[in-house]
């Protein structure tokens, strides 16, 4: 209630000020707002300087705006965010000059940050927008610790400009694959984690000794040690790719013992440990498409995973786990609903919860005054196959919902001019 009141109060203030001098850059009229936190409501949403500057009763007179977008009958939501991508790091998987998704060398690559490799001109970005994504969390894969993933707005500008201030998320892995990475069993991977945590903490407390060569040999490079401090010492969030119940439980024990902040991704068997995950307050990142025993790490894979976790109070995030087709995030959400997740919870899992994971929920993830205007206007229920994106705004800027693929469509809409072989 207090939240709604605050919004209403801000609205009144803004409405009053706009009447005198300030004009909204643009307003979207006629749509119904679907939010992760409030009931659907018909309203006019206005934007100024990249942020939502007012939300007005639909019945009130249209606010003064530089541009008015008529969205009568449409749905308006916060832009979607897929947290599990490598967007910007890759155009073509098979071509090394178009693929920067994996670091090299030592299996610990904490110093590698997504923005080192992020290319805002990647053709994938516009394709993501065509599916209603306004941001992604993107990062490297491979190794035991893959690097630091970051939130990027899918707008215009350099990678530095598209990167809100954030700590980033440390991407790591555990389970049979992690064991294989370090040349042994999953237990060897656990040993390596314990060793590197000890090393980072020794380093963080005695950095001068280390630099003056008065310290035992550490297993990490200096850049990795520095990069690990926010995650091993000061509570930054790890996103650990893990699948089997027993592995999730092992990580929960490690997190409790070492006071680490773990989110879990993949997490096909997370539903089996839902109460513990709920108690730990962990984010769990899953795909509603995972329902096959694809490996012996995920024999308990089932499509109700997201619904069961949500029901147990776990903060669920849905992901495609894809990059080129991260645009299909809305259908991953729809399939979670098909498998029993309440619709609004599914919306939260692709809007608000990703922003919370990144520590950016004050600015992103919902439709409220003051938040960054990453917004999508849909022809209907965003999770339905029959729905299309009508308008999309990133940081308040209207961007085309078309991509290189639409240009190909234009070139081939007519077959005239192509020689018959």
């Amino acid at each position: 209630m207090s939240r709604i009141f605050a919004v209403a109060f801000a609205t009144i203030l803004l409405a009053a000020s706009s009447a005198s001098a300030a004009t909204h850059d643009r307003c979207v009229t006629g749509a119904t707002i679907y939010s992760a936190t409030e009931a659907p409501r018909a309203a006019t949403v206005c934007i100024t300087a990249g942020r939502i500057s007012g939300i007005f009763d639909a019945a009130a007179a249209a606010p003064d705006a530089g541009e008015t977008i008529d969205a009568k009958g449409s749905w308006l939501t916060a832009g979607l965010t897929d947290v599990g991508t490598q967007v910007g790091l890759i155009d073509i998987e098979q071509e090394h000059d178009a693929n920067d998704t994996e670091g090299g060398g030592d299996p610990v690559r904490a110093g590698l940050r997504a923005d080192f490799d992020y290319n805002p001109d990647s053709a994938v970005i516009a394709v993501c927008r065509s599916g209603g994504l306004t941001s992604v969390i993107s990062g490297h894969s491979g190794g035991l610790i893959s690097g630091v993933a970051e939130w990027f707005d899918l707008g215009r500008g350099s990678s530095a400009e598209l990167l809100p201030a954030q700590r980033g998320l440390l991407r790591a892995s555990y389970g049979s694959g992690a064991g294989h990475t370090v040349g042994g069993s999953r237990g060897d991977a656990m040993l390596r984690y314990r060793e590197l945590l000890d090393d980072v903490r020794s380093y963080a407390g005695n950095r001068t000794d280390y630099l003056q060569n008065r310290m035992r040999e550490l297993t990490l490079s200096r850049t990795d040690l520095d990069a690990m401090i926010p995650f091993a010492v000061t509570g930054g969030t790890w996103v650990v790719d893990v699948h089997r119940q027993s592995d999730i439980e092992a990580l929960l024990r490690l997190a409790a013992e070492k006071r680490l902040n773990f989110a879990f991704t993949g997490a096909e068997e997370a539903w089996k440990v839902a109460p513990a995950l709920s108690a730990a307050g962990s984010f769990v990142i899953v795909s509603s498409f995972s329902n096959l025993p694809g490996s012996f790490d995920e024999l308990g894979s089932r499509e109700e995973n997201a619904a069961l976790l949500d029901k147990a109070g776990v903060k669920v995030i849905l992901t495609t786990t894809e990059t080129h087709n991260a645009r299909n995030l809305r259908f991953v959400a729809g399939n979670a609903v098909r498998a029993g997740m309440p619709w609004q919870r599914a919306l939260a899992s692709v809007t608000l919860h990703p922003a919370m994971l990144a520590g950016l929920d004050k600015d992103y993830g919902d439709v409220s005054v003051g938040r960054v205007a990453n917004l999508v206007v849909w022809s209907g229920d965003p999770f339905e196959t029959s729905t299309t994106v009508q308008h999309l705004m990133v940081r308040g800027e209207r961007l085309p919902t078309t991509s290189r693929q639409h240009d190909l469509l234009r070139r081939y809409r007519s077959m005239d001019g192509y020689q018959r072989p």
Partner: protein
Amino acid sequence: MRHLRKAALLLLLTACGGAAESGAKQAGAPAAICSNRSTGQPAIAPLLRAQSEDIILTHATIWTGTGAPLTDSWIRFSKGRITAIGSGGAPKVNTDGGGGAKIIDATGKWVTAGIIDTHSHLGVYPSPNTSGHDDGNEATGPTTPEVSSQDSVWVQDPGFERALRGGVTAMQILPGSANLVGGRGFVMKNKRGARIAEQLHFPGAPETLKMACGENPKRVYGGQGRMPSTRMGNIATVRQMWLEAADYRKRWDDYNAKLDDWCGEDDRSGEPPEAPSRDLGQETLAEVLRGHILPQIHCYQADDMLNQVQIADEMGFAIRSFHHAVEAYKIRDVLAAKQISVSTWPDWWGFKIEAYDTINEGPGLLTEAGARAVLKSDSPITNQRLGQEAGKALAAARSAGVKVDENDAIRWVTANAAWALGIDQFAGTLEVGKMADIVVWNHQPLSTYASAVWVFVDGIAELDPNAPADPWSDFEAGTNNHVRGGR
């Protein structure tokens, strides 16, 4: 060994005399090589189960795949075949013969023909992904027409049941794309209880052959330092292969003509003609040239497809379906004129340069041009939601102003798929006389929210909401029964 038997049957049916080589010289044998020729019939495995009662689905919205939806209608099936379809909610006992049948009230539900997936690797690349069951590519030589995916199918793949729950009643299991010729495909029905793949064989389905062009074979064999390592190497290898197959075919056709003459003689004096030696791979290719085996060719790029069309024209066979074919929209006029179907995806792209030009409107544009578009999965995940794939492609096409409708879209995963596999006379639409492979959905079939409620294969309820939950696969016995629970 079904393959050997199958190869022998093909000889009996079309080329005769598999036994001639050794038998001809023996006393009494000549009569046998003549009489054997007419007795060969394909051994169709007996059905695993038979439909025991007539079933009528009532008050449904029926998408027959042949035109506009039928609202508040009914469909009856008996002994594995559709026997009647009618309007007005439910059949009248007196005039429509509704008596004695099991009635299933499908009020508020949609009914379609079973989904047919033309491109699956279930069983040959099963779940879980293990080295012991990695059986999809005989990647030891660029042309392996002698192998058949049927011989690799692990019938315990848990993916079959997941596919059934997605409404898939039939599919083509293909070898992978490492080879220019990967081997025969296996067209099967999706039924519970098979102990060997043969029991799943789709009765009456023609044989198919998986081929591949472009990047995949040249990567695999170029990587081994052998031909082909380039597209020109691909084409040269395939062209040489077809020339040799044409020779093989001619040797057997000549032999059969001579045998016909010899068998037609009253006294059969003299020695019967000597049979050429057999080669399983060449037999398969010869059957393609004769038009009895339907080629299914993995190609992404428009130019790669046109090169294959040229070879097919040159050798005198018809390509039945291009697979993946993300650039098919660029040559849709040719594909329509040549009657080549296109088994594709609405949106997969970017994993290699060949797949860089996918557009979501592809299936719509192909349909508009009069070509047969098919949406297939190539994935144990996607094949659980082919209706959604069709829904996505429909929305994209409509958005671009392409005139296609729900009937076109459902045909992308049913009727057109059946045509691509040569089983359209048996399946793919809801029409009287066709096989009772039928899905009842709880939402509009192209919706994200649609789940199959009932799935009938040969009139048997393979998915029955009232049946006790027990996984199909022995692999999931004991450990994974929750997968079916929670509902």
